[in-house]
C-alpha cells in the first residue's frame, strides 16, 4: 500500500467512470458514472494527504481531508441540482435518453 497503488486505483476508477459517462444512454446512469470520477478525485486527495507529494514530502493530512470534505459538499450540491433537472426533464419528456436531448444541435 503506497502512493502509486492509490493513484493507480484512482486512475482506473476515473477511466471506468469516463467510459460510463460517454456510453451510458440513461441520464441517471451517466450521472452515476460521473460520481465514480469524482470518487477517483477524492481518493487522490486522501492519498496525497496520507503519503505526501513530490515536493519536500510535506503531506498536510489536515488540508487533504478538508479538501476532500469540501469536494464532497460541492458534489452534493451538484448532484442535487442534476437530479432535480433529471426529474424535470423526465416530467416534460417522459424519458431520460441523452441521445434525444440534443437541443444544442447545430
Amino acid at each position, binding site marked *: 500500500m503506497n502512493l502509486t497503488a492509490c493513484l493507480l486505483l484512482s486512475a482506473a476508477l476515473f477511466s471506468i467512470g*469516463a467510459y460510463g*459517462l*460517454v*456510453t451510458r444512454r440513461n441520464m441517471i446512469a*451517466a450521472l452515476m458514472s460521473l460520481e465514480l470520477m469524482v470518487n477517483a478525485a477524492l481518493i487522490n486527495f486522501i492519498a496525497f494527504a496520507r503519503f505526501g507529494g513530490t515536493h519536500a514530502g510535506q503531506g498536510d493530512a489536515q488540508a487533504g481531508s478538508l479538501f476532500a470534505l469540501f469536494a464532497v459538499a460541492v458534489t452534493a450540491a451538484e448532484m442535487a441540482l442534476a437530479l432535480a433537472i433529471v426529474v424535470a426533464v423526465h416530467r416534460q419528456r417522459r424519458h431520460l435518453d*441523452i*441521445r434525444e*436531448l*440534443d*437541443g*444544442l*444541435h*447545430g
Partner: protein
Amino acid sequence: MGDTRLAAFAWEPMHCAAYGILLLPLLSFLINGLWLGRKSARASAWTATVLMGATAALSIIVASGYRDHILTAPHLFPARAALAFEHTWLDFSLGSGAVLSARLGFYLDPISVMMVLVISFISFLVNLYSIGYMKDDAGAGRFFPLLSFFSFTMLGLVVSSNLAQTFFFWELVGAASYLLIGFWYAKPSAVAASKKAFILTRLADAFFLMGLLAVGVNAGSFDFAHLNGPEAAAALNHSVGAGLVTFNLLSLGTLGIYMGAWGKSAMFPFHVWLPDAMEGPTPVSSLIHSATMVVAGVYLTARLYPLFSAAEYTLRVVECTGAFTAVFAAAIACAQTDLKRILAFSTLSQLGLMMSALGTGGGGEPGAAYTASMFHIFTHAFFKCLLFLSAGAVIHAIHSNDIREAGAGGLRKAMPRTYWATLIAVAAIAGIWPLSGFFSKEAILHAALANGRYGALAAGLCTGALTAFYMARYFFLIFHGSAVGSRAPHDSRATHAQEAHPVREGALMTLPILILAVPSALIGILGKGFFTGTVRLWGAEGGASAGVSESALPMRHASSGSWLPAVATVLALSGAGIAWYWYAFRKNGAAFPDRRAPAWYRILAEKFYIDEIYLFLAKRVASKWIAAPAEWTERNIVNGAFDWMTGAVKRLAFLQSIAQSGQVQAYIAVALLGIYLLFRFTGPGY
C-alpha cells in the same frame, strides 16, 4: 470695396424685425402644421394669413431701417450691406488654420431687402386669396402650413449671408415646392409633376453643390461679402487639372453655381418641370412664379454677380441660356390652350429675359445689366402674381383650365373686377406705357444695348413682341371669345357647370387682386427713379469690386438708345394687334391646334416635343443602353458574386454545424481528449 467684413448693424427695432421675418412664417408652419391645421382649416388659414401679414409689416420696418440707417451711412457706402444678425452654425477646418464657416445670417443689401418686401407682401396676399380659393378643399388644413413653410424657406434664401445658408434654404424651397405641387396627391398627374420638379431641380442642385464647394473651399469662405470682393475672384482665377483637361477654377465654380440657378429658374434644358408644376393649386403656382422658387435662380446669380462678372465665360452661358429660353418659351406660349400653362411659359420667358439681362453685364456695363434684371424681377413679381390670381378666379368660376371653355361664359360681364385686373396685368407684362412692365423691359433692352450685346437685344425685342401677342390672345380668348368657345367639345359641360355654380367674385379672392393691381400698374413709374438712382449704383460697385470695370458707369442709354422705347412699344402693340384681329375681331379660332392647324403650330402646341424627347432619351436610350446593361451586371455579376460568397459561407457553416451534434456525450469525449492533449503537450514536465 475691399472690406470683406460687414458691419454688424444694431438698430434694435430692425434687429428684432429681422428675427421676426424668419420666425413668424416658421411659427405659422409649426402651429398650423402640428396642431391647428388638424383642428380647423379655417382657423389655420386665418392664423397663417395674419402671421404673414405681420411678416410683411416687419419687412417694411426692416426696409425703412435699411433706408434710414444703412443706405445713407457713409462708412457703409461701398457695400451698402450689413448684417441684421449672424450666427455660426458649423465650422470646417481647411487645414493650416483656415476655417470655413457655415453661418445663419440676415444679410441686408438692396436686393435682399427688396426681395424680402416682395416675398412677404405677395405671400400675404396669396394667403388672403387662398382663404377663399381653398375654402371647399378637404386638404385646406394641410395647405396653409405648407404655404407658410414655402414663404419661410424663400425668405431664408434671400436673406442668406453666405452660400451654405443659401444652399440649405435652396433645398428647403425645393422640398416645399415638391409638397405643394403634389398637394393633390390623389391625382397621378400632380404626383408626377411634383416628382418631375423635384428630380430635375435636384439634378441641377448637384452641380450647385459642387460649384459652391469648389468656390467656398478655394476662396476660403462662403460669405457673400468675401466672395463678392476682389480677393475671392483673384484667389479663384487660376487653372486646375492637368494635361489637356484644365479648367479655370473661377469659371468652373461659377458655372456649377449657375447650374443650380439654371435648374431652379427652369432655363431651357431644365424648363420642362415648370409647366407641369401647374398641377398644384393656383395660389401655389402664383407664389412659385412671382416671388418664390423660380426667381431664386435669378436671385442667386444676382447675389454673386460681382463674382460672376469676373468670369467672362459663365456670363456668356448665362446670357445665351436666358436669351434662348426667353424666345423659346414665348413661342410655345403662343400655342397653348391651358390658362395656367400659358402663364407658366410666359414666366419662363420673363425669367429668360432677366437671366439674359444679367448675362449682358459682361459687355462693360455690369451695373446697368444688374439693375435692369433686378428691376424686372421686382415688377414681374407683381403683375405675374396678379395674372395668376385672376386666372385662379376664372378657373374657380368655370371649373376648367381650358381657355376655350373660358371664352364661352361671358366672363367680362360676370367678373368685371377680374376683367380689369387682368387687363392691367396683361398690359403690364406686354410692356405698355405707363405700366410697370414697360419700364423694366426697357431697362433690360437698354442694358443689352449699352453693353453691345445685340443678340440679347434682338432676343429681348422678339420676346417683347411675342409676349404682347400671346398675352393679348390669352386676354381676348378668356373675355371676348364666345364664338371660339362654342366650338369646344367640352362646351356643354362647361355651361352646365356654370349654371350649377353661378359665377361670383368672392370678396376674399377679389381683394388681393385689386390690391395687386395697384403696384402692377404704378410700380414702374414709382420704382424707376429708385432703381435707376440706387440699384444702379450698387450694381456698379458690384462690378467694380470684382475688378472688372473700374470706370464710372454713366447712364448711357439716355444718349444712345432713345429709339428703344418707341421700337419696343411698336412691336408690343403690333403683337397685341394681331392677337386682337385673330381672336377678338374675326373670332374664327383658325389657330387652334386641331387637324387643320399647320405643322409649325402643332410643334409649338406640343412644346417642341421636348418632353417626348426626354422620355425617348430616358426610356429608349438611357434605359436600354445604360440601365439595362447595368441591371444585367448587377443581377448576374455583382449579385452572382455575392450569392456565391454567401453560398460558400453557408456550406462552410453547415460543415461546421455537423460538429454541433447536440450529443452531450460526444462533447464530453471531445472535452476529455482535449484536456488530455492540453496536459500532454503543455503540462509542466510530463
